[in-house]
């Protein structure tokens, strides 16, 4: 009886253990449900701007619209003038550099290289009017462009190379009466098309996000939460939350997933422990540029090939530009698996005038390492290419690319690197030796958008495996499943083989001996019998 009771108890425990191991209870993730409830209710505007008499008139210039805005919102322009969207420089402490003023005005990139001397064209993405050269008045409130962010009519757009002024076709009164909370297209007009086309720069920000599915982006999906950019990138006093590390360098005012999702969002302790050193994006954005390709490589050294004296452009079968005489050759990729780097929120940049110390030059560099407790592993788009450089002065060159007319030294009109380099470097006040070469450069873009549904997040094996681990490139720490001590594994296997061989030989020896002993015994018996 005791035996029966005992075995029943034992087998019950066994079954319970098996169930525990095999069964994954579908507990509701209350935190996530709460967030979904919160963001399901879309904000409604508290005023109707069409009813304001101040806006019911013909505006002769966009500045008049701004004046009308300031009449009521009489302090907001000050906030804008203090914001990152307005200023092209920002003072911050940068490792190895000290307190520095950095931003679009003095850092370079490896796409269209830099804004200096090309303001007339580049200002299409500045929230101001009349930026024709470096003498733009950053203190004039009349030049603040309220409409580019707050237009809800989808009518407003900046003119091409018009120094930040809207296109002449825009009906300013209609725009002024439509203003409200920024929509996706307000942000996208610049952030989707930066670098000269859709998805060129970021890879995770592009026009597909205007109307997309959960598979592409769980947050912005039309069949999902249908969130807009400013739902996360909130802008208390026009100070946008979030950092873009092509120009930013300090770990402040960042926007991270855990602001909403907390640092323990999983219903699993093992996964939650990862959040200490692995950014959410690493597992939850398995690939970027899911819908349309993004530029992965840009070779300025190929630029300048003319056919019958005229610039050309070539596209591949999918319709993306692979060559432009004015820009060089490109390589595009779609559905790209990111590269992974440690990142602690701080970045350094190549600033105009810096000496080139290693090649490829990292025009921006994400700082961090496994030993640094503040660092997490982030997915990164790395854009590689080559660009113009002065081998004598050892400086990267800011070329003058854009001009309205030929004969103004602009490369896009005259196709003369020497003139473009001379004019550009003169503008930024740096020497130019008269010689130029092309040097390889890299640029690092943390990937933050296009978060996949949780079913599509990376599985453990994508990183924790011997071969083809996603983190194969990050070798400054030990990761179970990926790493092992080759010597120990060799010796361990040797020990097992030795043990197996030992017992097999010993066993065979016993069998042979037993047979022999039996023979001797039977011989003895036989002899005894014979006697």
């Amino acid at each position, binding site marked *: 009886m005791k035996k029966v009771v005992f075995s029943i108890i034992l087998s019950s425990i066994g079954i319970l253990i098996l169930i525990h191991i095999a069964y994954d209870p579908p507990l509701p993730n209350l935190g996530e449900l709460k967030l979904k409830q919160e963001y399901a209710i879309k904000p409604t505007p508290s005023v109707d701007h069409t009813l304001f008499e101040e806006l019911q008139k013909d505006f002769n210039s966009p500045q008049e619209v701004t004046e009308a805005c300031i009449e009521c919102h009489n302090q907001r322009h000050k906030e804008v003038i203090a914001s990152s969207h307005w200023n092209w420089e920002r003072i911050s402490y940068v490792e190895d550099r000290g307190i520095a003023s950095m931003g679009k005005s003095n850092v370079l990139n490896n796409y269209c290289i830099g804004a200096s001397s090309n303001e007339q064209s580049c200002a299409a993405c500045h929230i101001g009017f009349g930026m024709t050269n470096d003498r733009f008045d950053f203190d004039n409130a009349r030049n603040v462009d309220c409409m580019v962010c707050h237009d809800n009519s989808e009518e407003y757009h900046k003119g091409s190379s018009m120094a930040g002024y809207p296109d002449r076709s825009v009906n300013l009164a209609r725009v002024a009466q439509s203003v409200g909370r920024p929509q996706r297209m307000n942000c996208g007009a610049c952030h989707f098309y930066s670098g000269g086309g859709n998805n060129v720069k970021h890879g995770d920000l592009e026009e597909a996000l205007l109307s997309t599915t959960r598979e592409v982006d769980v947050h912005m999906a039309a069949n999902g939460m249908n969130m807009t950019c400013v739902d996360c990138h909130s802008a208390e006093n026009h100070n946008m939350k979030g950092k873009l590390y092509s120009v930013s360098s300090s770990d402040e005012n960042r926007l991270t997933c855990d602001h909403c999702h907390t*640092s323990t969002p999983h219903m699993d302790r093992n996964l939650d422990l990862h959040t200490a050193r692995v950014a959410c994006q690493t597992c939850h954005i398995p690939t970027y540029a899911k819908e349309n390709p993004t530029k992965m490589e840009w070779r300025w050294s190929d630029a300048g090939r003319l056919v019958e004296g005229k610039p050309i452009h070539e596209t591949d079968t999918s319709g993306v530009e692979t060559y432009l005489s004015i820009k060089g050759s490109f390589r595009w990729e779609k559905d790209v698996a990111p590269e992974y780097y440690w990142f602690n929120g701080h970045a350094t940049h190549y600033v105009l005038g810096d000496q080139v110390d290693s090649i490829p030059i990292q025009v921006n560099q994400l700082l961090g390492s496994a030993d640094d407790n503040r660092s997490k592993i982030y997915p990164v788009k790395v854009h590689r290419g080559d660009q113009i450089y002065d081998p004598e002065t050892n400086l990267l060159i800011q070329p003058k690319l854009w001009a309205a007319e030929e004969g103004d030294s602009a490369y896009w009109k005259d196709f003369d690197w020497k003139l473009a380099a001379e004019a550009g470097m003169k503008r930024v006040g740096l020497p130019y030796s008269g010689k130029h070469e092309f040097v390889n450069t890299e640029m690092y873009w943390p990937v933050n958008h296009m978060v996949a549904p949780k079913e599509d997040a990376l599985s*453990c094996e994508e990183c*924790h495996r011997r071969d083809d681990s996603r983190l194969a490139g990050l070798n400054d720490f030990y990761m179970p499943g990926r790493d*092992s001590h080759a010597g120990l594994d060799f010796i361990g296997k040797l020990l097992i083989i030795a043990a197996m061989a030992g017992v097999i030989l010993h066993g065979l020896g016993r069998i042979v001996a037993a047979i022999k002993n039996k023979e001797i015994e039977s011989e003895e018996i036989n002899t005894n019998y014979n006697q």
Partner: protein
Amino acid sequence: MQKVYIYKKFERFWHWTQAALIFFLAITGFEVHGSFSFLGYEQAVESHRVAAWMLLILIAFSIFWHFTTGEWRQYIPTFSKLQAQLRYYTLGIFKGEPHPTRKSVHKKLNPLQALTYLGFKLVMAPLLVITGIVYMFYRTIDANNMVIVSDIPLEVVAFLHTLGAYLIIMFAIVHIYMTTTGHTPTSNIRAMLTGYEDLEDDSEQELKDENKKDE
């Protein structure tokens, strides 16, 4: 020959549960190590953790049992007949010589076994248990201010834990083989299953009394 009740109920439960857990931990552990793919990494990690806790609980009970029953004395190594025992396994066993030591309820282990199991209990098991616990609680600082056990590099912890695993596999292979060296190839294993073993003893009557008391 006398049928003797040598392995108590708890002893057998402990032995076989521990054997099963070690086997399971070896499989899941080497999957976590990246040696092969079987359950899937996530499942392997989870299962390894659950089995590890079960083993820790079992070990706690077995330590209690060993000390309360005094069975721990079985592992006190004796060196007097150690050489004879070694000679038996390397030579005598092939010549059909008898075992140099007698097995009894009070002396279940021969000198070589006692020494080996003592090594198992004092070196191999603590190595695996301690490195395993450190591995399990290995943390770096995080936003939740988790406990930090990151002063020892994970690489070292993993190295020692894996080393322990290789050693225990080697032990298991030899251990299983050695069970066949009893009176008959299956007599030892049968004893560990049923508790009873045929033992020769000159003080048979004394043993019988013992058995009655136990049952």
